């Protein structure tokens, strides 16, 4: 995530510097650097705020140090489970798990899980969802 902000900063600096003028690029660079550093420093707190647990046949996901969110997704509502792992994730053998429901708004994703745990969770969820009542 820090990497994304850093990359965005670099792109913004180069873009503004070339297209507009050098001082716009400088301002964007300073702001971007400050924001990236801030995110970098906050990262332990952000990561610590992510949490998940299974409650019966529901999946609870908690996130956000400031803007806190607790979402609960029943397995019976699940339409698909996605596991995503980018190159950086794979290097640290991490993966993110995402539950897809019929609602586009229920954005239930757990980033940065250990890969084995992610696949185990997926298998468990699909096994439960097969038996659980869909009730659509």
């Amino acid at each position: 995530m820090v990497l994304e902000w850093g990359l965005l900063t670099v792109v913004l600096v180069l873009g503004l510097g070339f297209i507009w003028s050098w001082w716009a690029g400088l301002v964007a660079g300073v702001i971007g650097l400050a924001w990236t550093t801030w995110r970098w420093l906050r990262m332990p707190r952000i990561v610590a705020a992510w949490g998940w647990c299974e409650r019966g046949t529901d999946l609870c996901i908690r996130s956000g140090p400031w803007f806190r969110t607790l979402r609960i997704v029943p397995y019976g509502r699940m339409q698909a489970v996605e596991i995503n792992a980018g190159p950086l994730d794979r290097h640290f053998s991490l993966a993110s798990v995402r539950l897809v429901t019929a609602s586009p708004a229920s954005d239930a994703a757990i980033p940065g899980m250990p890969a084995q745990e992610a696949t185990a969770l997926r298998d468990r969820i699909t096994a439960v969802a097969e038996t659980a009542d869909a009730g659509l």
Partner: protein
Amino acid sequence: MTQIPSPEEPDPAATQPPPARPEPGLPATGPQRSQPDPAQAPRPAATEPAVTEQRPHWATPIVRGWIVLAGVAAWAIKQLMDSWQPGDSLPPVRAILVMVAAVLAIALIQAAIGYFQWRTTTFRIDEEEVRVDHRFIQHSSDRIALTKIQSVDVVQPLAARLIGLARLQIDVGGSSTRTIEYLSRADAYRFRDFLIGRAPQVPCDAGVIPDAGESRSAAGDGAAAGTAVAPTRPTRPNDVLPGTTGSPSSTGTTDSTAPTAPPGAASKAPPPFPGPGSGSVWQDRRIDETVITSVSSRQIVLGTFVSLSFIWCLLLILAGLAIPIALGIEVISIPVVLAGLAGVFQVISGSLIKYWRFTLLRTTGGLKVVHGMTTLTTRTVPPHRVQGITISQPLAWRLVGLFRIDVTVLGGAEAPGRMEATTLLPMGSASQLRSVVGALWPSLDPATFLDPASPALHPIPRRARWLRWFDRQTIFWGADEQVIVSRHGLFTRRTAVVPHSRVQSAAVHQGPVQRLLRVADLAIQLPSGPVHLRCRQLDSADARSLLIEEMDRARRARRRLAAD
């Protein structure tokens, strides 16, 4: 104008002739109206030809192309007018001839393309599927299994309506809607009735909302007994409004069908289709359908002209006229007035013309909505696919006591042009609202979430005024064993109602300021549509317990639904 699927239709391009063509499918009149013979009842061929293969109506290219042609003709006339100097005594004959030739050429090209498109389009409806084949330049063959059909709409744009044609829109639940255009009106209605009769039948209130218990025991018992006898029984006399004209015929139909249909085969057998009264230029209602509610022209006019956007547009026009006159300049105001007029036109066409003669009917496939002044639209709303409703009431409508109901229907929202397909009541009084909600979820009492003094609705804590200083007193939330409700809105008051069994997932959101004030938002996620349920700014402990309870209630409701 009624074209009947007939065996003698020339069809050299057909690859596979249908195996068994029954009698020409004249809309059967006599024997099907009342079915005395139990053996006759489940046989589908009695009401509908088993296989229908035909082309769309021959006038399809004309209906499709007339707007383009009219546009070209208008352009040509404008060109002629421009080139004609007022000093000339005669318009230049040469120019007229050229223009007429151009219009004729375009018409010919269009006619040729339209003819070949029409020649190469066939559709086929049989016992398993609907097949639409296009073999013009791009070949395509759509097959829609009858069991996948969710709803079938009949749309009649103005030109098609004038010459008696209609478009069939088949919704298969995903984002795509298949259309067959154009059919003769009688054919379109007949195929629609057939397809809906074959679509998977779910009774109206299949446990989506459990009965409240003793409070509404009379209606609940009646409904329960009715579903026990005949699961697909479409009409329920309990819910018919007193005074609707359709109630005697409806009770007659149900009484005649209920004993004849065996309980096992009842879900397979298509309901009887009475031939007459099936639909005209003005309306689309069979005699076995009951009117749940219909919006009178007075209400439509009132609701349109009292709406806030209309008033804003009028104010814009007045301002555009008054300010320049007061200041003594006249040029600047014209765009403002034009914008206001455009707004007025849009409001009128969007609500007055679109929802003219809005009628909600109860039919075999669920609820049927018929509306439109120029374009007559007929849609079916299967109640078991309704995920939630929003009752909204703009400020001006509160004075005249009008409500509007929008619903989220599963799979219906993404398709283009389906935004209006979500309105179940464009404007109506409180009693009309009650009957619509009662038709959708019979065991739900609308008073629990409409009455502001209802004990089921809870206000939000006073300390939330730091965040919602202007509309704190308008925010309410509530949940009982049937539904979860949220209400908010200073000007337009919106009440969202979602049955527990339809909740996809839930979340509690809390920002930093909200944490200081110990309040939180609870959001319920639904499939995409007009209904958004978010209980705002409730006490954080309440939000947390409501979230946990909601998931338990939703699980219980889903279990109950699966058990039914």
